[in-house]
């Protein structure tokens, strides 16, 4: 080996160079992220609001406009201005004549894989759930996700009875899941073969949510009527 080949390794770069690279790249990346966030934020919020609006009109087919209400501590409903996000919200749907047709309520519960979030429409005249739309679910593709596509299963929610007891304190009949093809009562949910856990989860989360909301909504009906 000739002496020229025995070069010593290059001196390590100074700490300054390392800091310069890391901090420089960090600042550049931070600025880029913030600017993209600022640009896309209004579009993302509009998309989310539109998706929610569409879901409300899907579960309340005769509604043309909607308004968000918040349940306050006193047990009454207050019209919500502006930002329609957060807990304890229901969405009232009105038809062309500004008549109240029903309420859309969000509910969630544990499914087979993860939390299932859905929105359902409650009709005053029918005292029933008249439509559901799953907002979020990670159920097994091809099996559990039939809760969103199976026509026989969705048929359950075209008139699922949630009438209240005479004193208005609770549901007259809890929503109960039954095996596929064994539904006899209007408050039973006909399950899906091959997606038992997911369909039972839907029935359970609807029961829990309706048990909470329907008596409260019925005892405060006046709160929604004044809004035009």
């Amino acid at each position, binding site marked *: 080996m000739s002496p020229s080949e025995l070069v010593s390794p290059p001196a*390590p*770069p100074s700490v300054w*160079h*390392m800091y*310069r*690279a*890391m901090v*420089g*790249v*960090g600042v550049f*990346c931070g600025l*880029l*992220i913030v600017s*993209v*966030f600022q640009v*896309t934020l209004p*579009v*993302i919020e509009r*998309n*989310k609001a539109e*998706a929610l609006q569409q879901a409300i009109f899907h579960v309340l087919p005769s509604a043309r406009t909607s308004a968000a209400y918040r349940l306050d501590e006193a047990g009454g409903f207050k019209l919500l201005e502006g930002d329609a996000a957060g807990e304890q919200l229901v969405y009232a749907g009105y038809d062309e004549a500004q008549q109240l047709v029903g309420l859309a309520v969000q509910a969630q519960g544990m499914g087979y894989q993860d939390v299932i979030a859905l929105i359902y429409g409650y009709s005053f005249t029918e005292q029933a759930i008249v439509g559901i739309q799953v907002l*979020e679910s*990670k159920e*097994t*593709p*091809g*099996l559990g996700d039939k809760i969103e596509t199976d026509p026989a299963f969705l048929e359950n929610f075209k008139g699922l009875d949630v009438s209240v007891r005479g004193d208005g304190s609770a549901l007259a009949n809890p929503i109960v899941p039954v095996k596929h093809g064994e539904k006899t009562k209007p408050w039973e949910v006909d399950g899906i073969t091959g997606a038992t856990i997911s369909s039972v989860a839907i029935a359970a989360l609807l029961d829990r949510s309706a048990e909470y909301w329907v008596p409260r909504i019925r005892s405060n009906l006046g709160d929604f009527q004044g809004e035009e």
Partner: protein
Amino acid sequence: MASSKSSTDEFIKGLWKENPVFVQVLGMCPVLAVSNTAMNALAMGLATAFVLVMSNIVVSSLRTFIPKQVRIATYILIIATFVTVVDYVIQAVSLELYKALGAFISLIVVNCLILGRAEAFASKNTVARSTMDGLGMGIGFAFALFCLGAVREILGNGSLFGVALFHDSFQKWVVMILPSGGFFTLAAWLLLFNWLKQRKAKKEATATLALRKEVA
């Protein structure tokens, strides 16, 4: 040897000869997980391609500025930034798509294909060549994901891009949509690619043999 290659060669190699999925078998997590429909697969492939191209451009233009000791940390920072950008853009374009791709967008950060190209190629080559390399590899990756996604959607759901292809009586192969279907489809594609490669090599070998005989 690398310097003798033109930019076009850098672009072409990612599409076929060094395809990230079918030849290098890199980034298998998104390949298997998000290829259940053609749309998801294509969107994921394009998102990855965008991150790959942008990180290659930035890494190669900063290659003299970044000391060797902190290069991996800096590369990850650059990649994570572009992944965040893609994340916001997809949310702005379509919430439905964003829900379908879910956590896998954020996981592009740890896709070994991207860090691999930054480390093995972009940090040693010019911006122009790195861009071509990123484009080739990215499109190759998106193409491979689409190949998987299309097969899985057609067999598992009887549709392509959500458009039904068969009569109602078509019995869907649900297993193709489930995770195991990803493995089956990938195996079939790898088999096809390797068979094509071997056949080509054999043909070339016989051609050279024949040529030699003729010369003799």
